[in-house]
């Protein structure tokens, strides 16, 4: 609604009417009017409206009383049921009642605690002293726990420590909460059996302070690059990130810095989102189960920079992404995107013939394009999604610091997943890539996976995958069990 111009104009017009009309028109002298306004049609209409509202409030009050009477009887019945430990369907799902195990509470108003209700509880501090104390939990962040448990078998050699065993791949502890009206703070810690604790992400999210649709992230987090690299491993549609992402990006592109986001509507049914980021370095993070890149790996590319002089602009890493989503039908969307990343000049140290140390810097550039087509009928819970992403990697390398070589490599992956029922999906994926440090070597993999979403908080996935690698071909089968406790993401996936 465009109101700025018209509102001012209307206001001015009204003022004009008021000023010029005041001298010529006197208030209506209606003898039927009473001092309290009764008889005035406007006043009567207002009173009638208030009567109507009052009627509705009375109706609500009657409903509350009915509800509370019903609760009283229900609570006593539930107590009886709990004593009897009887959960037959006829007892739990009657009129005005819940399913087995569900009963009505002491308070029927959301957020309002009646004395003795579960909402009021026995909190010390606010309830006792009239002040919030450090022992109160209000304002504390929401907490989540995600567990990713994998059992994997493979014919890969030299894999005693990693395969043919049970693995707690990920235990993610998340804390999220509002800092103030302008920003939130989100922290995700990763625990696993091998390395212990790692800060997966910790960032301030300025999501309600900037103009238009701008947002800003500051801290350490997975960088916005491509379709799958920013996802946490337990959110992937398959067990591991595609091999090409492991090879060129190290799994996730992670860094400490800032990232600016913005979106705009291209039309009534399409949007364009873009982001730009800068970080100290573009690190990697990988918790891969299968294949040649398996293992927990972190690439901290900026090691060695700090002791030698001040940080220069060229030592920062940069990245950007633009992606557009189009509605192509009542249930389908097409997304296309492009990403670029420039890894900062890596400083490496060598010795010349006289054993004198010297340093050399190297750069990495990565570009990618991706496309996603999704057709999902939410009425039936069936549909499919297909995703393809291609990446180009360009690296400067050297074994001795004197003779340099540039390696340009190309790789891609694709997957398709069919949601055959509300809880079940079947998928297949594959990829092929030239090695980032020797483009003459190539690897590929292909596999199939079946996912059973037991409910929103628990999922089982069976996957079989074959790897073809210059080092060794291998085949593996895995069973992944993922559980979620507490708050969890319901974001917009674009």
């Amino acid at each position, binding site marked *: 609604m465009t109101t700025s111009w018209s509102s001012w104009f209307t206001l001015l017009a009204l003022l004009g009417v008021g000023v010029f009309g005041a001298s010529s028109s006197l208030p209506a002298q209606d003898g039927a009017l009473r001092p309290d306004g009764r008889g005035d049609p406007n006043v009567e209409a207002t009173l009638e409206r208030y009567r109507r509202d009052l009627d509705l409030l009375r109706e*609500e009050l009657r*409903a509350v009383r009915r509800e509370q009477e019903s609760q009283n009887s229900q609570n006593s019945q539930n107590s009886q049921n709990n004593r009897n430990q009887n959960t037959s369907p006829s007892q739990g799902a009657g009129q005005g009642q819940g399913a087995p195990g569900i009963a009505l509470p002491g308070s*029927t108003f959301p957020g309002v605690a009646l004395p003795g209700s579960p909402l009021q509880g026995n909190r010390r501090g606010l309830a006792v002293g009239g002040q919030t104390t450090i022992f109160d939990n209000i304002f504390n962040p929401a907490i989540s726990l995600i567990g990713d448990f994998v059992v994997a078998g493979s014919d890969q050699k030299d894999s005693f420590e990693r395969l043919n065993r049970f693995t707690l791949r990920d235990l993610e502890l998340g804390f999220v909460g509002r800092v103030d009206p302008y920003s939130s703070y989100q922290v995700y810690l990763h625990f696993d059996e091998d390395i212990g604790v790692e800060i997966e992400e910790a960032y301030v999210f300025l999501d309600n302070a900037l103009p238009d649709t701008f947002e800003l992230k500051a801290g350490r987090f997975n960088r916005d690059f491509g379709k799958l690299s920013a996802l946490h491993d337990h959110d992937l549609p398959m067990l591991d990130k595609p091999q090409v992402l492991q090879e060129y990006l190290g799994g996730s592109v992670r860094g400490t810095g800032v990232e600016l986001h913005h979106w705009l509507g291209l039309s009534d*049914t399409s949007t364009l989102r873009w982001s730009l980021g800068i970080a100290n370095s573009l690190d990697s993070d990988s918790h891969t189960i299968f294949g040649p890149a398996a293992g927990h790996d972190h690439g901290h590319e900026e090691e060695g920079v700090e002791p030698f002089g001040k940080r220069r602009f060229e030592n920062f890493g940069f990245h950007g992404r633009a992606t557009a989503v189009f*509605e192509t039908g009542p249930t389908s969307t097409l997304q296309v995107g492009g990403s670029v990343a420039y890894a900062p000049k890596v400083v490496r140290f060598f010795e010349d013939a006289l054993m004198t140390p010297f340093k050399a810097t190297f750069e990495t550039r990565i570009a990618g394009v991706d496309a996603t087509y999704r057709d999902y009928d939410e009425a039936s*819970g069936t549909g499919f999604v297909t995703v393809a992403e291609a990446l180009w990697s360009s690296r400067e390398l050297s074994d001795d610091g004197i003779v340099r070589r540039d390696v340009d490599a190309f790789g891609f992956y694709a997957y398709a997943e069919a949601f055959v029922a509300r809880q079940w999906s079947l998928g297949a994926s594959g990829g092929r890539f030239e090695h980032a440090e020797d483009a003459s070597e190539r690897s590929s993999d292909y596999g199939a996976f079946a996912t059973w979403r037991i409910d929103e908080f628990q999922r089982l996935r069976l996957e079989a995958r074959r790897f073809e690698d210059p080092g060794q071909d291998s085949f593996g089968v895995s069973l992944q069990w993922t559980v979620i406790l507490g708050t969890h993401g319901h974001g917009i996936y674009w």
Partner: protein
Amino acid sequence: MAFIGKRLLRGLAGLALAMAALPFSLRAQVDVVTTTPDLADLTRRIGGEHVRVHPLTTGNEDLHLVTVRPSFLVKVHRADVFVQQGLDAEHAWVPALLDKAKNRAVRFGGAGFCDASLGITPMQVPARVTREAGPDLHPRGNPHYNLDPRCMRIAARNVRDCLVRVDPQHRKAFEQGFERFLEDVDDHVARWRKLLEPCRGRGFIENHMSWVYFADAFDLRIVAALEARPGLPPSASYLAEVIEVAKREHVGLVVARPRFAELAERVARACGAEARVLQLGSTTSDKGWFEFMDATVATFARALTPEARRGGERGVEPGAKPGAEPDAGRRGT
């Protein structure tokens, strides 16, 4: 070129002045985005010509599991008013949508944010908020109050108040629309009660905890749910128990959403009841909430009246929509 530029600039300035000179009421419509077609219909009835209403969903989806599409973002970004069903019905997508749409006018706390559930006494509020009771547990109570005309009166009041807040110039029109809506509800409720009078106290089975407001409004009885726990598919032993209870209670109707049609049919066949596929609100292809309720009441009346139970047909019509019910509209009016 410079001359053309100046003329163009003057032309645009003149157009802007002319637009400003137009009376506000002639060109301003309140852009309203609603999460459901029911709320869209309600808003249209109250706002009349002064509102332009865009429902985000079609009514065929599971309201708890909607994927945000690009058009949602664009619509909410431009909206003056956002109306939601509330009570966590849209918790999986509305918070993220409002957050990303970056329209402060319609975010929680803004003048254009309307929670239609405000003031409604929720039913089936869990005493213990634990996932043990089911993954689809609603901590604030059952959100399907749109099946109860009494609750829709309260929702209408919330919508009216929000429209008045955003566009006070048309207060009178909104109040008149609201009054008309209440009168329509009264008329329809009298007819619906009359139609369902013979069914008072009769039991039916639902697939998910959805129909409690409807049952309460028309004195019907929910005997069991096909889900053992909200959001959990039933086991074979649980279904056997449901069928046994249904036989004992002489259940005449099993209602289910489209994706549970097969299950409802199986249970209905086993207990000699009628299975009906019903949505939990109107769809964008329906005429509106009253027509949806007409058809729904007619469906219940047809399946649960004693005459129908004795000699009525026992056809199972998976995929049949409420509007497709024979004589549905006539029976309801």
